[in-house]
């Protein structure tokens, strides 16, 4: 399949899977809350790429509509998440992900 010099939707799906896995590994390996957040963005983007690929594959606009909603949710998530991280890092500039347990009060 990969020997054919024509890009099939499966290539995009494979790329999306690879990006998602890299993001997942980064989320598990890194302990800086900001970098972990970037890895979450990476995984979200892999999923949007998959949605657009399916939209193109099935000739259906709904896949792209879903991506718009994913973008909105991602923006809201970044705002709140960075708010929490800023509040945490202000208190303790060397905070790691384990220090977020201060949230339990």
């Amino acid at each position: 399949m990969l020997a054919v010099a024509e890009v099939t939707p499966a290539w995009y799906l494979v790329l999306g899977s690879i990006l998602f896995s890299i993001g997942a590994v980064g989320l598990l390996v890194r302990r800086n809350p900001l970098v972990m957040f970037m890895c979450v963005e990476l995984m979200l983007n892999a999923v949007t790429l998959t949605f657009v690929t399916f939209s193109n594959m099935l000739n259906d606009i709904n896949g792209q509509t879903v991506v718009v909603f994913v973008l909105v949710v991602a923006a809201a998530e970044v705002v709140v998440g960075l708010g929490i991280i800023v509040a945490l890092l202000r208190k303790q500039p060397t905070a790691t992900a384990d220090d977020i347990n201060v949230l339990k009060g």
Partner: protein
Amino acid sequence: MELFVFIVAGGACIIGALGVVLSTNPVHAALSLVGTLFGIAVLFIAQEAHFLAAVQVIVYAGAIVVLFLFVLMLLGVDRAEDLSIEPLGGGQRIAAVIVGLAVLALPLFAIWSTEGDATGAGPQAGDANLIDPLVPNINQLGESLFTTYLFAFEVTSVLLVIAVVGAVVLARKVKRAELIDDPLVEAHEAERAAAEAEAETDEPAEDESTADADAEPAEADA
């Protein structure tokens, strides 16, 4: 041609993604993220999703990454960290890679077992959500968003309002009630009242003194 675009953009995506995970400096990670996001925007264009490509660049590269960099610079955590002394046991790192490979293997197996057609039944001819190549992408997307998904669209506006309120609550460092007894605040209040009485018509001066009164106690507290 499409092959060339796919290889270049996909390569940028993967190199950027690896940069996010592997770079020791968080600023480099954020800049690598821009590479990935641009690569995905190019792949969106290659798949006829023109509006989403523009939104991807504007919202992600233009707003979200800038927000990340802003936080990094604001907090001064933009120094390199030694990945080897991160508080992680070696076992956890190996386990993370195994989990990542498993996460990768699952969709790859699904794609392979269905021979690249892992979608099931597509829309029938004549469906409203069918992509018409003669109608611009943004028209179709707008029609879908404002007819079929109108309620979901309205709900996202509520979500955004909640996010804004949450961000403001999180960013407020000191409650007003806690500042009432602060002598510094009382001094500022008196100063502000005097300034107001002195120059009632001078609006900008009043604004400035108000900003001072808000900013100074927070600094003193920190």
